[in-house]
């Protein structure tokens, strides 16, 4: 009984005073630490400031609570005998005897008895007591209706439930059930022994949630605490970029750096001038790059790497932006203050050219249903077209700047564009409501997260700001470290659950930050000119692409892959140029 074991070798047996022996035999918890050699094998009970026993190195876990939730967990796992043993051995009861009686009464349907017991348990909050009684009597009411004892149900309602004087609206609903019991049958299953047992168990669960946890320990409390710890560990892990990394309880979760793409696997050389825009398709199978050389290249991504698929020529001006159709079958490209072209991805053909007389386009995008496109025009308006070229709508006024990004959320509701040097406009198309993000510095570019809830904004002063755009726009984080003085540099979200931010930089490095903590994780060297844009493969958190003034695109990945290729190619970097 919580003390000296009878089968321990005689040398280890403690000499106890008769007083202590008496305490041990009636199972009360030992309060004073007993000093002795065998005792060192067991956890030394400490004292907290409140005089209760505590466990754990920080002295904040109360022993009674700890044992009770373990007992509860044992019972939930089905280890009834173990749970009972624990209660016996520790001398700590999971529930007081009154509570045990109460729970038994609920499951057996002894409603009147359970109400009496409830009153005896001694709840301090009258409202809780009444709410609990209400739930119990409601069950009594429904069980009468199940048995078609309508008058009994009515009596319960009138003489027991209404006098509680709480929840009048529920009383109304219950009175309607009396006249039309069929209504409540449609919600509850017809009377059967199994469903009655189930609904009583459900009632018990509701009561457990209602009553204070000191009286009834909540279900699955231990599991909840452990999950909380695991989630905290995962969120704190800055290199968590792979799905298969399961969490173990044996050690704190911490990924190594090796899950972040930081090795240049391929260098793609096909453009003949600076590359300004880079974008993976939604399914991650293609990559589009567009350049000052007035061409756009579609690259194909497969198990062997990235290879050139099509080179799209036709624009007379450098291309400022590209946009993939929602199903990735088509691509839009926009020449700087020129036209917008729509291309078929598999054939490489130009399907349509969108232009406006006397004006030039500055940006382009697709509607989420793929049925229309929109584009910023250099007269500061935004135009919307059907695929065949019919113009649908035009928003005038200060909507865009000369060269600026344009995005539409995946529900088609919001159009986002830079409307002033320091302002981004969030236009709700249907509600015609405008919201603004206001910055202190000039905004150069932005990027929308996949879940439409966040916007990454690049500023002139070399900071990247993360804004939450649900409801009122709020600044969430800032990322610093990269260099940007003269050109437009783009950044993007990426990695598992978009937990990372990547950006180009004028110092030729590719910067990667952990989104949640704002910590700079990597600054990848390799390019020999300013890195203008980056794109993280949405389907592969281990693939990142960057494009630069040095006319090349670098594909970054994990070390394991490059280790394989080190055997076949000398320096482990696979170069791919335009020739097929």
């Amino acid at each position: 009984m919580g003390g000296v074991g009878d089968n321990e070798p005689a040398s280890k047996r403690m000499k106890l005073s008769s007083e202590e022996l008496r305490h041990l035999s009636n199972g009360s918890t030992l309060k004073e630490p007993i000093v002795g050699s065998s005792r060192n094998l067991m956890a030394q009970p400490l004292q907290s400031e409140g005089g209760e026993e505590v466990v754990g190195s920080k002295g904040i876990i109360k022993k009674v609570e700890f044992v009770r939730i373990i007992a509860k967990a044992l019972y939930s796992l089905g280890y009834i005998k173990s749970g009972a043993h624990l209660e016996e051995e520790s001398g700590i009861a999971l529930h007081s005897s009154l509570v045990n009686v109460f729970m038994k009464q609920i499951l057996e349907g002894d409603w009147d008895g359970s109400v009496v017991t409830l009153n005896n348990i001694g709840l301090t909050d009258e409202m809780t007591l009444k709410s609990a009684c209400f739930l119990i009597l409601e069950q009594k009411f429904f069980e009468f209706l199940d048995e078609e004892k309508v008058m009994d149900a009515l009596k319960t309602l009138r003489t027991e439930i209404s006098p509680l004087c709480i929840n009048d609206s529920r009383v109304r609903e219950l009175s309607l059930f009396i006249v039309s019991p069929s209504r409540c049958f449609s919600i509850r299953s017809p009377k059967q022994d199994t469903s009655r047992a189930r609904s009583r168990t459900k009632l018990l669960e509701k009561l457990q949630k209602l009553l204070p946890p000191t009286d009834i320990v909540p279900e699955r409390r231990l599991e909840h605490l452990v999950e909380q710890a695991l989630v905290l560990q995962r969120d704190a892990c800055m290199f968590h970029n792979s799905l298969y990394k399961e969490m173990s309880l044996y050690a704190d979760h911490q990924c190594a750096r090796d899950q972040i793409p930081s090795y240049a696997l391929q260098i793609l050389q096909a453009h003949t001038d600076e590359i300004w825009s880079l974008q993976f398709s939604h399914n991650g199978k293609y990559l589009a790059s567009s350049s000052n050389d007035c061409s756009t290249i579609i690259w194909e991504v497969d198990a062997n790497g990235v290879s050139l698929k099509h080179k799209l020529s036709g624009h007379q001006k450098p291309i400022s932006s590209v946009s993939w159709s929602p199903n990735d079958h088509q691509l839009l490209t926009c020449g700087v203050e020129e036209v917008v072209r729509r291309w078929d991805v598999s054939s490489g053909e130009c399907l349509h050219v969108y232009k406006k007389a006397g004006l030039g386009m500055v940006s382009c995008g697709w509607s989420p249903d793929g049925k229309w496109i929109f584009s910023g025009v250099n007269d500061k308006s935004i135009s919307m077209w059907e695929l065949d070229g019919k113009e649908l709508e035009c928003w005038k006024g200060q909507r865009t700047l000369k060269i600026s990004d344009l995005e539409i959320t995946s529900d088609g509701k919001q159009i986002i564009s830079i409307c002033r040097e320091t302002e981004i406009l969030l236009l709700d198309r249907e509600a015609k409501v405008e919201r603004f993000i206001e910055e202190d510095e000039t905004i150069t570019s932005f990027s929308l997260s996949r879940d439409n809830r966040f916007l990454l904004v690049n500023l002139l002063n070399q900071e990247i700001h993360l804004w939450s755009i649900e409801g009122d726009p709020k600044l969430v984080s800032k990322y610093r470290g990269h260099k940007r003085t003269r050109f437009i540099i783009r950044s993007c979200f990426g990695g598992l659950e978009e937990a990372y931010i990547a950006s180009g930089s004028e110092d030729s490095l590719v910067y990667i930050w952990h989104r949640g903590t704002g910590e700079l994780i990597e600054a990848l060297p390799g390019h020999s000119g300013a890195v203008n844009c980056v794109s993280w493969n949405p389907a592969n958190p281990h693939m990142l692409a960057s494009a630069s003034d040095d006319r090349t695109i670098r594909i970054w990945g994990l070390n394991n892959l490059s280790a394989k290729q080190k055997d076949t190619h000398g320096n482990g970097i696979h170069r791919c140029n335009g020739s097929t």
Partner: protein
Amino acid sequence: MEVDPRLYEQISVNDNDIHNIVMSYLVHNCFKETVESFIACTGMKQPSDHLEDMEKRKRIYQFALEGNALKAIELTEELAANLLEKNKDLHFDLLSLHFVELVCSRKCTEALEFAQMKLTPFGKEQKYVEKLEDFMALLAYEEPEKSPMFHLLSLEYRQHVADSLNRAILAHANHPTYTAMERLIQQTTVVRQCLNQEHGKDGPPPFSLKDFLRS
């Protein structure tokens, strides 16, 4: 902009019109004996079969006001055949009066049975469900007078239902459902309100019958 009382002098009002106004009021409210003496005094033409119907209508109104809805329904069926069929809202309200009577006399079982037979069929249409809930809720309380729905037991409610019944019967017989007098007062009030809103402080004040009668 107070209206100059002298302007009134310039409008002449026909005696016959006045008689008709008074008569419509008396007929609407079933003041049978008053109608008869008024006709005798003024020498007006007797309205056709008004008197007999008026008597019946008066009895129906009285029964409804007392809460004896079943009797009121019976007589209504006699007087105006399918009136209640065409006025389901009214039918429900009348039946609910009987239900309320049963609840007030603490005849719970009877009330429950009555509700199940007569009231719940209305519940098939969504618009009656809330009303049904209101009435059923009375059953849940041992002292319905203290329940949140106590207003359903009041004289005002019965009066409201009785008035609706009265108007429905008049309408059924193609008679006006509102008395001319009522309408005239309403008209004046509304016109005054409009003028008041348009002209603000310069316009005439809102119509007050009490003040008018005193002046």
